[in-house]
């Protein structure tokens, strides 16, 4: 629908400035970190080799080769990721509340658009997902660059190889990039549902204010329980359900949770929302 696309475009444009800063921060921190970690390693190695008058291979025997984990475990690499994740989590809430804040009554404008109000919900949801995927993609593009920088700074003898299959051994990244594409879809699918449920909970609060917080919490817990039903069924009646039946059950549970989040959001936006 055209209104949906226009709203997505609008929401993304609103955030782009901050987003570019986030991306810039990540790039700078990680690139600088790559240089620093590699240079520091080489300096340390050279210093010890000189001071103790040992050969490179002796050094390697005692201290080991350079491991890429030094870099991927460092603050230079991890802190921007954590920061971006934290900021995006905050924005999941802020993307709604910013339209109500203080003198800002932009929510009036959104609610009076000649389109189904649920488009607002879908647009904000899509925006969040795109922001997440954008950073995910950025990191993927950065990795070979960072590896190249380090490889060029650390001399041959001290190097180990690094292949991208080893991503699953790294902290945080192993979660962001599951081994198989089906798992990627599952992980981020669950993320999407979580954001959808949070959005609907926010709409409960915006529709009923104080009572709404209570509704929001009850709704959240209910959604969680429905989602977990297949898992719970399986733990109580182990082996009663065959794997493919459990999978179908889980799919149904997922559809129920996502479907009800959307349906409730639509209902709240149409009939219960309060500016």
């Amino acid at each position: 629908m055209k209104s949906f696309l226009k709203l997505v475009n609008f929401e993304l444009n609103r955030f782009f400035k901050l987003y570019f800063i986030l991306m810039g921060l990540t790039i700078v921190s990680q690139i600088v970190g790559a240089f620093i970690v590699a240079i520091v390693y080489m300096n340390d190695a050279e210093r010890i080799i000189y001071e103790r008058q040992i050969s490179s291979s002796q050094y390697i025997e005692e201290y080991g080769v350079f491991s890429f984990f030094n870099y991927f475990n460092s603050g230079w690499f991890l802190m921007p990721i954590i920061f971006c994740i934290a900021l995006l989590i905050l924005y999941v809430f802020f993307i709604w509340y910013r339209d109500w804040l203080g003198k800002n009554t932009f929510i009036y404008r959104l609610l009076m658009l000649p389109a189904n109000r649920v488009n607002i919900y879908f647009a904000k949801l899509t925006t969040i997902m795109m922001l997440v995927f954008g950073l995910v993609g950025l990191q993927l593009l950065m990795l070979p660059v960072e590896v190249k920088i380090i490889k060029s700074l650390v001399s041959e003898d001290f190097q180990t190889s690094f292949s991208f299959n080893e991503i699953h051994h790294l902290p945080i990244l192993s979660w962001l990039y599951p081994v198989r594409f089906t798992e990627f879809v599952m992980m981020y699918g669950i993320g999407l549902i979580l954001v959808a449920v949070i959005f609907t909970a926010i709409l409960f609060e915006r529709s009923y204010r104080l009572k709404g917080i209570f509704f929001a919490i009850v709704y959240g817990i209910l959604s969680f329980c429905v989602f977990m039903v297949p898992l719970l069924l399986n733990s109580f009646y182990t082996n009663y359900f065959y794997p493919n039946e459990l999978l179908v059950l889980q799919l149904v549970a997922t559809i129920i949770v996502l479907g009800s989040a959307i349906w409730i959001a639509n209902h709240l936006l149409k009939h219960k929302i309060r500016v």
Partner: protein
Amino acid sequence: MIEVKNVKKKYGKKQVLSGLSFTADKGEITCLIGINGVGKTTIMKAIMALIPINSGEILIDGEKIRKESFEKVTFIPDSLAMLPKMRIRDAIEFMADFYKNWNPKRAEELMQFFKLDTTDRIADLSKGNMAKVNLLLGLALDVDYLLMDEPFSGIDIFSREQIAEVFTSHLIEDRGVIITTHEINDIEHLIDKAVLIDNGAVIKEFRVEEVREQEGKSVIDIMREVYLG
């Protein structure tokens, strides 16, 4: 015609609207009059489905509000309904993008009439100019009905005169307008129908011309009678 039928609304324990009923016709300016907190802004928001109502019915040209209705009726609230960081031209672009019935020529006309500059950021404008932008964003839509909440509040006298001018111009002509205001003096001569509200209900609904001719009373006279008498 916009019909408000017996609308009730409670905020917590407070009954803000207690069975409010009135009608506003196309081609007429209807003014909702009442002291602060009596429910004027509330009913306008209710007409635009910006707040839910507990009971009653609101019909726009005989039907309940739908998404298409927002091309027929627009609301100009007393606060800015656009992002303050935007420049005026960004706001105009936004409206043009989302509304089929955005009239760019009229927008241009209003820009010149109000002497505004498209490159100004909305947040940097004076209160008067901000109100004018607000008005512009509503008036440049080819809608049948305009709802304006306190268009004159906190505005300097010259801006007020400019805004009042708009009412007599072709910009309003065939449209139906519902307006709330304290400054009854400024527009008494413009309104067609007055709706006096107290405690969330309509106390008196009358045609201004008729009352002036038949009883020789002005709106303020009637108000005195009703509220103080």
